């Protein structure tokens, strides 16, 4: 089966953030899937993957939590691809896959916990975990996307921000850095590729994989604010109008600390923050409301009107 066919129908793992602060990402991901004729089947009765917090209590619990999601997809739904739009979820499922492949003691703990919890243990290799970027790129591709564009993003300058968890640690992404066609862990480009196909101009943005301090966004907010401010300023200096995001945590981190920087440090950086799925959705002809632009914290409506997208 080709990747195109394989990604046509995938198990969808939204994760907790997409039901709260990241609702706009949830809405736009589903809307884009629908517009492209792709089928998302939500993982039944899913649980949290553990985010960035549970591993600090015990990493093996995180491995178990993530493995349960993959087990439901594989054993109860018979799916072979799980798509997670949140970097955190995507990262954790990949990490669990890596641990279960390489570390017998993880297999042991997951086996025991799954037994006690009363479900089949997940076995490494049962599903392929992909990000929303892999999904659109694999199922539709740049050429396919180009054919479907109704409102070109021409004239919009974009800084593509991938954050940390999409590429690091490199160990858990064996399919990346595999030459032409594959994603790069040092200079990721899948989002750039898709947005370019939708007509946008990508700026040369050096902080693609910089960290926004998301792990301490609540517990050490000043550090996060400084890190986000660096990212916003670098994007602005590179000439971008918009920062495109592909993770609810990165996205809300940028939005939140954009405000906090203004309130606490008196530094205002005027740049719009939009999910890549919102941009692609609008390029496919969807109205801003359909992709949840009104659910973002930062206001980009007047900008979108000016660019003819709203």
């Amino acid at each position, binding site marked *: 089966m080709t990747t195109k066919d394989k990604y046509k129908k995938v198990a969808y793992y939204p994760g*907790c953030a997409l039901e*709260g602060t990241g609702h706009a990402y949830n809405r736009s991901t589903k809307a884009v899937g629908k517009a492209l004729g792709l089928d998302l089947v939500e993982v039944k009765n899913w649980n*949290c993957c553990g985010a960035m917090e549970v591993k*600090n209590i015990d990493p*093996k619990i995180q491995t178990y939590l993530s493995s349960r999601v993959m087990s439901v997809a594989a054993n109860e739904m018979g799916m072979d691809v799980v798509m997670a739009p949140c970097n955190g979820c995507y990262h954790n499922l990949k990490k669990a896959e890596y641990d279960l492949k390489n570390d017998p003691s993880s297999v042991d703990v997951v086996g025991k916990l799954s037994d006690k919890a009363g479900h089949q243990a997940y076995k490494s290799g049962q599903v392929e975990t992909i990000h929303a970027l892999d999904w659109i790129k694999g199922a539709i591709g740049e050429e396919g996307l180009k054919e479907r564009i109704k409102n070109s993003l021409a004239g919009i300058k974009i800084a593509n921000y991938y954050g940390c968890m999409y590429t*690091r640690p490199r160990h858990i992404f064996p399919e990346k850095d595999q030459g032409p066609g594959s994603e790069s862990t040092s200079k990721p480009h899948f989002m750039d590729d898709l947005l370019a196909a939708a007509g946008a101009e990508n700026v040369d943005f050096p902080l693609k994989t910089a960290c926004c301090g998301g792990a301490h966004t609540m517990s050490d907010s000043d550090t996060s604010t400084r890190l986000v401010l660096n990212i916003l300023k670098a994007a602005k200096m590179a000439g971008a109008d918009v920062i495109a995001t592909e993770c609810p945590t990165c996205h809300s981190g940028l939005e939140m600390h954009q405000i906090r920087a203004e*309130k606490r440090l008196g530094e205002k950086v005027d740049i719009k923050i939009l999910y890549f799925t919102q941009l692609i959705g609008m390029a496919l002809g969807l109205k801003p409301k359909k992709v949840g632009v*009104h659910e973002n914290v930062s*206001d980009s409506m007047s900008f979108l009107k000016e660019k003819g997208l709203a």
Partner: protein
Amino acid sequence: MPIHEKSLIRPENLKTHDQLVIDGVDVSGHWSTFIESRVVSDYNEALEAEIASLPGGEHIHRCWQCGSCTNSCTVNAINPDFNPRYWIYLIRMGMESELLRDKDIIWQCVSCNKCTYACPRDVFPEGVMKATAHWLERKGHTAKSPSMHFDEVFAEQVLKTGRIEESRTIRRFFARTKQGLFQDWMVEMVKGLLRGLPVGLLTRMGLATLIAPRTSNWSKASAAIQEYIDEQHTKQEEAMSLAQLIDTARRDAAA
């Protein structure tokens, strides 16, 4: 950018003299600053093993001190005293008292894994930072950091319901660290959210704060996870010789 390790010299060990003549040569003034050599006599030979017994610290023995972790570190870029390479060195040498000088900043690691990406020896320094922060807290050197409070609030909710509902987690965290929820920037954020939200979604969010989302049939998984955490905790206490310490203290108290 070069890494400035000047901060590794304690200011009290830098000596200058206003009036000093050695062998007839006048060496007064700061041009002849001396660095007093430091003497470490209180090695904790078990330090590396203790850190290695905590999750994340397992691979610390592989470090060959190349410094790539510190060089790539997000937090080091804004605070030169945040130095993973140096801490790994101290831990492996057993220089506990030196390590304790930095006890209040180690928890600030943002888990960006730039160090893990750069490390040629697969030490997973990010994990070592977490293990060290836990070690500090469990040995009583530091109070629970805000970050650990957050991890716990978060983990408790996942354990209980299987899922996270963000506003609830945030409220509990602020309560536990005794901060007010109505900070100016939080208010501004919520204002931004209210601007465009349809009534339907608002009600849903309101409801979500009352009824936490739950994964059904979660109780068995929750019990199994809790049991596992307790087991691990006991094992680690043993490895950190805390159990022994507690035993000794008990016996002392009884005598």
